[in-house]
């Protein structure tokens, strides 16, 4: 009886799976590289044939664009125009996400209601909304708003408030009361950061009270009160934040005096350190009590790639001082200084002990009667048709999907939880708020995160209603300059970054909320 298993002879090369695997992969890699190189060469030939060049230089040159709305409707360069587009996209995104979440939760809960008519209404809403393309809905809202009366005092629909008007609805969009920020708003915001930190401690304290079981803790009430109190104190006490200006003034002079090579060395070191950490983590997962196990192809691939990327990053930072110069603010990016010096300076000038003005100026909307009837941009908040149509479309559409996700999440909570809650005498609303929704939240988060991503990407439809988001501005820019490829790369980079940020945020919360299982 043979006690040693005989080693099988290795198969010939053309049948060896390990060899074949790598041959196939290198053929694929070669194909992909050949395809990319081929595309680039063709693009260069085509561009050269039209005696043009592909370059990023045009971004810093003056450009004659007028945007329909944004923080700067007459941008002085293409990059600034695109920046306005990005900010407009963010405005649409965050307000949309907030409203869609609220509406979606209501729809989802209504869909589960034992009240027949409420239940059927929610079902009807979902079936109606999610089966019509979003773009059709957005155009529908645009058309609907255009059918409202002109923006004059007689024809616009207004909600009166004493002698003034609280809300306006007209073919020029909507207008509602707003607290227009003044120059000291940053100081107030800085104060609020401090207030929120204080609120966090209040929250911790109330949680401790709750856990000790000494009567009702009213956590939510205390937290809300703390936020409101710090906001009210901040209204007058914000000049106290002037010390931030002093600190950032000092940081500014520090950034001006630090030698570039120091930052280069630090960045190179960080790059190598990151590579090392990835490798170490990989090795740690492979470690067994009896030393390292067998490394698969995949492990080698990851270790080599991590090391390679870390080293290449270090070499890049050392050989290209421009990156460090831009970070420090000694060189310009697209004709704009965006480095530390500039940022510290911008912060320093916004904080001062002597600025005592109120941070916000509350006022009601007004109609400016002139040659063209429109709202007075100085008073209240004016929402354009484009924004309103996009916002209504996005919120109503996404809420239908969020509603379905919420419903699935609530149904996923075990029935015993509901029964136990009812058995200890909770009311239906308490049961929902204290037992079911917190548990459903865990299940609901990933699909809702997906819907947030969809909403963020769907903001790009704004071009259909002429709202100046990144895609609309980008289209105008490349029509004027002919730099299609560069604009497209900017779109790609921006949306990838937004998607990555959103999805990693959702993943973070998801991991935090996951049931800890032993």
């Amino acid at each position, binding site marked *: 009886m043979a006690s040693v298993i005989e080693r099988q002879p290795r198969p010939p090369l053309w049948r060896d*799976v390990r060899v074949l695997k790598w041959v196939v992969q290198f053929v694929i890699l070669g194909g992909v590289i050949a395809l990319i190189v081929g595309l680039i060469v063709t693009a260069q030939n*085509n561009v050269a044939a039209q005696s043009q060049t592909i370059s990023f230089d045009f971004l810093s040159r003056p450009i004659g664009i007028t945007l329909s709305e944004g923080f700067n409707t007459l941008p002085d360069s293409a990059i600034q125009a695109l920046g306005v587009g990005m900010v407009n996209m963010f405005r649409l995104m965050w307000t949309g996400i907030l409203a869609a979440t609220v509406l979606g939760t209501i729809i989802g809960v209504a869909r589960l209601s034992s*009240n027949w008519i409420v239940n059927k209404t929610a079902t009807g809403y979902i079936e109606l909304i999610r*089966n019509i393309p979003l773009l059709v809905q957005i155009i529908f809202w645009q058309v609907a708003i255009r059918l409202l009366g002109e923006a004059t005092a007689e024809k616009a629909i207004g909600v009166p408030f004493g002698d003034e008007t609280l809300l306006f609805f007209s073919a020029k969009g909507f207008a509602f009361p707003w607290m227009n920020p003044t120059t000291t708003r940053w100081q107030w915001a800085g104060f609020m950061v401090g207030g929120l930190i204080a609120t966090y401690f209040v929250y911790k304290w109330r949680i401790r009270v709750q856990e000790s079981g000494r009567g009702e803790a009213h956590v939510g009430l205390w937290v809300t009160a703390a936020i409101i109190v710090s906001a009210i104190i901040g209204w007058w006490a914000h000049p106290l934040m002037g010390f931030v200006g002093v600190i950032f003034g000092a940081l500014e002079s520090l950034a001006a005096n630090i030698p570039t090579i120091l930052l280069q060395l630090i960045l190179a070191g960080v790059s190598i350190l990151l590579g090392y950490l990835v490798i170490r983590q990989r090795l740690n997962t492979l470690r067994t009590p009896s030393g390292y196990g067998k490394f698969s192809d995949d492990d080698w691939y990851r270790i080599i790639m991590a090391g390679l990327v870390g080293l290449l990053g270090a070499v890049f930072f050392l050989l290209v001082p421009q990156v460090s110069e831009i970070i420090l603010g000694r060189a310009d990016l697209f004709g704009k200084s965006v480095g530390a010096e500039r940022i510290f300076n911008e912060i320093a000038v916004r904080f001062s002990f002597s600025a005592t003005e109120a941070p916000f100026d509350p006022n009601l909307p007004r109609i400016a009667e002139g040659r063209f009837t429109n709202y007075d941009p100085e008073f209240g908040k004016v929402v354009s048709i484009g924004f309103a149509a996009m916002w209504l479309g996005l919120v109503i559409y996404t809420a239908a999907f969020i509603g379905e996700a919420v419903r699935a999440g609530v149904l996923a909570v075990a029935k015993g939880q509901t029964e136990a809650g009812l058995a200890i005498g909770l009311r239906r609303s308490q049961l929902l708020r204290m037992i079911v929704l917190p548990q459903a939240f865990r299940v609901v988060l990933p699909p809702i995160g997906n819907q947030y991503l969809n909403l963020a990407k769907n903001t*790009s439809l704004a071009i259909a209603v002429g709202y100046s988001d990144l*895609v609309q501005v980008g289209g105008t820019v490349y029509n004027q300059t002919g730099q299609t490829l560069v604009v497209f790369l900017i779109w790609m980079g921006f949306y*990838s970054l937004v998607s990555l940020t959103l999805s990693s945020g959702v993943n973070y919360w998801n991991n935090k909320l996951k049931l800890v299982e032993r």
Partner: protein
Amino acid sequence: MEQKQYPVSIDLGIPESAAAPEPPPSGPWVWMRTNLFSSPFNSVLSVVTVALLAAVVHGVIGWAIDEGRLWRAVGQNSRLLMVQAYPVEHFWRVWVSVGSVAVLAGLSFAYFRVGSKIAWRDLSRISMAFGAVLSLVSLSTMFHFLAADRTPRLTILALVVGLILIFVPRMYTARLGDAAKEPTIPTMGLVALGLLVLIGLIWIAQAPVPGVSEEGFNIDVWEPIATSTKLPWTVVILSGIAAFGIGTVLRDRVEGLRQVLISAWVLSAPIIYMILFRGPDIDWPEVLTLDLPVWLGFSVLGGLFLRWAADDKSGELGRFLSGAIFVVGLASLLFIDTLMLFKVSTIALGTFGMLAPTFGGSPAARRQFLIGWASSMLVIVVIFRMADSASALGFRGSNFLGGLALTFALAIFGIALSFPLGVVLALGRTSTMPILRTVCTFYIELVRSVPLITWLFASANLFQLFIPGGLEVDNVVRAIGAITLFSAAYLAENVRGGLQSIGKGQYEAADALGMSVVQKTSFIILPQALKAVIPALVGQVISLFKDTSLVAIIGLFDLLLIAKNVIPGQSQFLGSFMEAIVAVAVIYWVFTFAFSRASLRLEKRLGLGTR
């Protein structure tokens, strides 16, 4: 052997009268108390919701029947909305295409036993719901009419129909009494009945068409629907119903109907493409002298080679020869100057040769494999003939295509092309090959993180930068390309979910049987993975159908762009924005809702999602 006899009934000593428990209280009032007014809060909620709903519905109906509405804009532009600028003299092509799809659908519905039986009680409940909605809507309409001093003509009829729908089934149910003897009705029979009623309606209905009054003003004249519309529809619907009947008769009597149906569906796409878009001017002598010999030669000689390669005896040599043929075919693309048909056929032969040992193991499998080879060659030859022949239609580009036809063209080609690509990407992303996985992951994540509209812009404005000068690719084809590449990344993620749901045991069992990677993937893993994610895949198809509306932004005349820019701009329908957009929303809604219902039924039938 003799069977034992048991007593049929056992006397438990319970008096007859006590056996039947008191039936729970029922009736509309009890129902309302439990479902609408179970608590004070619920009562308030019900009242508020009903009031709100009534206000909204009443308002919408009032808007819809207002005398200022230009619904004629939709009716008279229905041809535009369906096929845009498709030339009238070529409409028979559209009808042939629609008709062949109807026949195929009829046969398939019969063969796959779509539709079940519905109990009379359920049917009467549906009828009551419809009746209630119809009566309420007609009441609201009547109110609006009377308020505007207009005569309510059709509303009274609608109200009567609604009341009949509510009460007649109910009375019949009451007369039936015993629940056990309730009749069941096949749903497909109901569908057929509905379609026949539809035919009747289009023969008696009248529609307004633009005309001139005696004083010379432009007015609308009510006329019957044109024969050129109602006759083809009648023929299409009747042939669909007839096909269903024939399929019902044939399904148990003819063997191999399944294969015939599936290949007919696959072949229908290129044939419909040929009928609709090209109408190729086929050079029949050349078909006889070139296509037929090529097909026969490759099928027979190639078939003999494949038969040999599939055999165990051929061993390494078979694989080596197939690989060599494949490489020669690829090289001929670049270096040999001959007909493209030969090059592609050679590559196909090499591919089939390499797959032969995998798929041609048993004699039965080998027969199927060889039939598959012959039919693939047929498809290749037909497609090349179609592409090579000049079109007899005289269209330039595909700008004649628009409206609903464009939406369907984009959706069908997008799905058909992105599905294989998505499966390949999913396999690549889950494979153990690091470089392949990196490439696939990078592609999927990049495509998914950027919105579709930017890819469509890229296809419209950036594409010409990356192809050699002088080559022009049609707008619609470019849009299909962008939609395909985009949708493939999403499909890949869905398929990946299915692949990850397959237990490790399946892989190990396949390995233990000595299966190759290709065999393992195509016989064990993919069938299970794809079945597990059918709901997600259908969801993706629905969202692709909705996403086709984005092509309006890059200027293709789909439903949306026609509704937004064309119809409201016509002089007689100036400003009919709302009517047009609502009509388009209804069209989209009908199709998407039908898809999603069908997907729910499919899910139930496959037993997915139940434990």
